[in-house]
C-alpha cells in the first residue's frame, strides 16, 4: 500500500513537469501545425541555464526561472520569425524535418560548448527528502511541482481570459477564420512559438536539480513529449496536461509493478495504440 501511494505521488510530481513540456509542444502544434522536434533541446537549454546560473553567478536554480523564461521566450520568437516562418508553407513534413535539423544543430553545439559530461545540480537545502505521512518526497521535485502548477496555471488564465489568449485559441481552432476576424496570425504564431519555447525552457530549469543534465538529454525528452501530446490529443492543452500526468503515473507504477528497465517501453506501446485506435487522443479532442 505504501509503495502504491509512494509511486502515485512521484508519478504525479514528475507528471506535472511532463505536462508543462507537453503543453508547450501542443500549443505550438495547435496554432501553426508544427511538430517541433527541437522542443527537447529547448528543455535542455533551460536545464543548462539553471546549471550555469548556479555555477557562475550563484543563482538558485528555482529563482533563475525569472531570468530564463523571458530569454527563451524572445529566443523562441526570433527562431520563429527568422527561421521557421519561411518553412511553414512547405507543409507539416518539411517543418518536421526542419526542426529535426534544428534539434541536431542545437544539441551538437551544446556538445561542442559543454562536452558530453553528465552534470548535476546540488542544492544545500534539498539533500534529504521530506517525509510527510511516511512518504518520501524529494524537495527539488516538490518545489518544481509547485512552480510548474503556478506557471501552467498562469498560462491557462492567459489563454482563457485575455484578448491575446483568445486570439491564440481562435487561431488554433481555425487560422483562416481568425484572419477574417482581424487577428494578426503571424504575430500570434510568433508569440505562441515564444510561449512554447519558454514553457519548455522553464520545465528544463525546474527539472534540472532532479535529473542528470547532458547535451543530448532532449532526445529522450522529445520522445516522451510525443507520447504525452498524442495521448491527450495533438493541439489540446487540457489533453497535454492529462497526458503528462498519465505518463508520469504509467512510468512510476510501471517501474514498480512491471520492471524498471521496461517502464519507458510501456509509454511507447500506449503511444502506438493511441495513434492507431484513438488518433484524436484519449479524450477525443485532438486533431490528429
Amino acid at each position, binding site marked *: 500500500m505504501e509503495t502504491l501511494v509512494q509511486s502515485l505521488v512521484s508519478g504525479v510530481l514528475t507528471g506535472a513537469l511532463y505536462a508543462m513540456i507537453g503543453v508547450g509542444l501542443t500549443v505550438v502544434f495547435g496554432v501553426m501545425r508544427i511538430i517541433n522536434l527541437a522542443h527537447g533541446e529547448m528543455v535542455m537549454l533551460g536545464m543548462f541555464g539553471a546549471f550555469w546560473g548556479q555555477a557562475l553567478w550563484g543563482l538558485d536554480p528555482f529563482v533563475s526561472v525569472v531570468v530564463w523564461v523571458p530569454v527563451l521566450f524572445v529566443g523562441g520568437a526570433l527562431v520563429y520569425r527568422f527561421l521557421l516562418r519561411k518553412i511553414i508553407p512547405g507543409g507539416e513534413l518539411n517543418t518536421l*524535418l526542419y526542426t529535426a535539423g534544428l534539434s541536431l*544543430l542545437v544539441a551538437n553545439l551544446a556538445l561542442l560548448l559543454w562536452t558530453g559530461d553528465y552534470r548535476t545540480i546540488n542544492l544545500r537545502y534539498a539533500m534529504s527528502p521530506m517525509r510527510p505521512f511516511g512518504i518520501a518526497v524529494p524537495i527539488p521535485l516538490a518545489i518544481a511541482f509547485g512552480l510548474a502548477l503556478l506557471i501552467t496555471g498562469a498560462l491557462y488564465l492567459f489563454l482563457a481570459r485575455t484578448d491575446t489568449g483568445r486570439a491564440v485559441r481562435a487561431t488554433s481552432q481555425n487560422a483562416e477564420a481568425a484572419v477574417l476576424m482581424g487577428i494578426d496570425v503571424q504575430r500570434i504564431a510568433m508569440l505562441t512559438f515564444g510561449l512554447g519555447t519558454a514553457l519548455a525552457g522553464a520545465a528544463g530549469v525546474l527539472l534540472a536539480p532532479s535529473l542528470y543534465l547532458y547535451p543530448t538529454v532532449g532526445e529522450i525528452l522529445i520522445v516522451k513529449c510525443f507520447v504525452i501530446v498524442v495521448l491527450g490529443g495533438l493541439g489540446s492543452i487540457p489533453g497535454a496536461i492529462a497526458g503528462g500526468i498519465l505518463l508520469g503515473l504509467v512510468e512510476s507504477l510501471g517501474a514498480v509493478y512491471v520492471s524498471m528497465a521496461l517502464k519507458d517501453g510501456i509509454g511507447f506501446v500506449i503511444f502506438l495504440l493511441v495513434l492507431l485506435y484513438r488518433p484524436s487522443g484519449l479524450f477525443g479532442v485532438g486533431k490528429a
Partner: protein
Amino acid sequence: MRRAAPWTIGAAAALGLPLVVHDPFFLHLCILVLMWTLLGSAWNVLGGFAGQVSFGHASLFGMGAYTTIMLYLQAGIAPWWGIPIGGVVAAATALPIGLIAFRLRGPYFSLSTLAMAEIVRLVALNWEEVTNGPVGFLITDLPPVRILGTAVNWEAKEPFYLAITLLTLLGLVATYGLKHSRLGAYLVAIRENEDAAEAVGIDTVRAKVLTLALSGFLAGLGGGFYAFYFRYVDPDAVFPIALSMEMVFIAMVGGLGTVGGPLVGAVFLTAIGETVRARFQVGHLVFYGLFMMLAIRYMPEGIWGRLHRLVAGRWQGRGVAAGGPRGAA
C-alpha cells in the same frame, strides 16, 4: 543508356581505388562515405521515392548488425554470409513495422516509426540472455581466408573497402532499378497524392510494403557491414535515434528521390562530420543539422538535384529544365 557510361566508369574507378591509394585513414574515410551512401540509399528508397519519412531506420540497421555478429560469434557463420542474412532479417523485421506504421500518414507515420525504433532499442538493451544487453558483442578474430592463394589481411582497410564498395554499388543499382520500374512509378504517384494513386487502381499498401522490405534489406546490409568492419555492436552504437536521423539527413541534403543523391550527401556530410570529429571528438553532427536546415530552406531538391538541374539546363540551352527533384536522375 547515355547515363550508363559515367556510372560504369565511376564504379570501376571506385573498385580500383585501393590500387592507387594506400593511406589507411583515407580508405577509412572512403569506407564510411560508402557505408553512409548505402544507408542513405536505403532510407531514400522509402523516404525519397515513396515519400514515407521514417525516423526509425536505425532499428533495421541494428537488426542487420546484430544478426551478422551473432551468427558469427554463436554459429560460426562468416560475415560474408552473415551480412546478406542480416539484410533478410532486417527486411523481415521491417514488415510488421510497416503493417503498423503504414496505417498512419505524414508526420504520424514518422512519429510511429520513431516509437517502434525506440521499442526495439529497449528490447535489445534489456533482453540480456539474447543480446548481451548493454555489453553487446565483440569480434576478436575474423576467419582466415585465402583469395587467389594469398591470405586476406583483416588488419588492413582494403578488404573492407572492396566489400562496402560492392554492397553500395548493389544499393545504387537497386535504387536505379526501382526508379525505372513500374513500382518506382507507383511510388512517385503515392508520394504526390496517395488517395489519387489508390483511385487509379494502385495497390498502395503492397507497393509501400515491398519498398519497405527493399529499404530494410539495404539498411540491414549496411548494419551487417558495420558489425563486420567495426567488430563491435551494442544497443547505443546501432540503435540510437541519431543514427536514424543521419540517414534522413544524408538523403535529404544529397537529393530526395534521386539515385546519386545519397552518394553526394554522404561525401559532403561524412567528410565534414569526420573533420569535426577528428578535431573536437564530440558534436560531429552539428553541420548535419545546419545543412539540413539550409537544404530545406534554399535547396529542397538537394545538392544532386540542383546540380542535375543546372547541367540539364545547359545541355538543353535553357535556363531551367523541367521538374526539379522529379526530373533528376
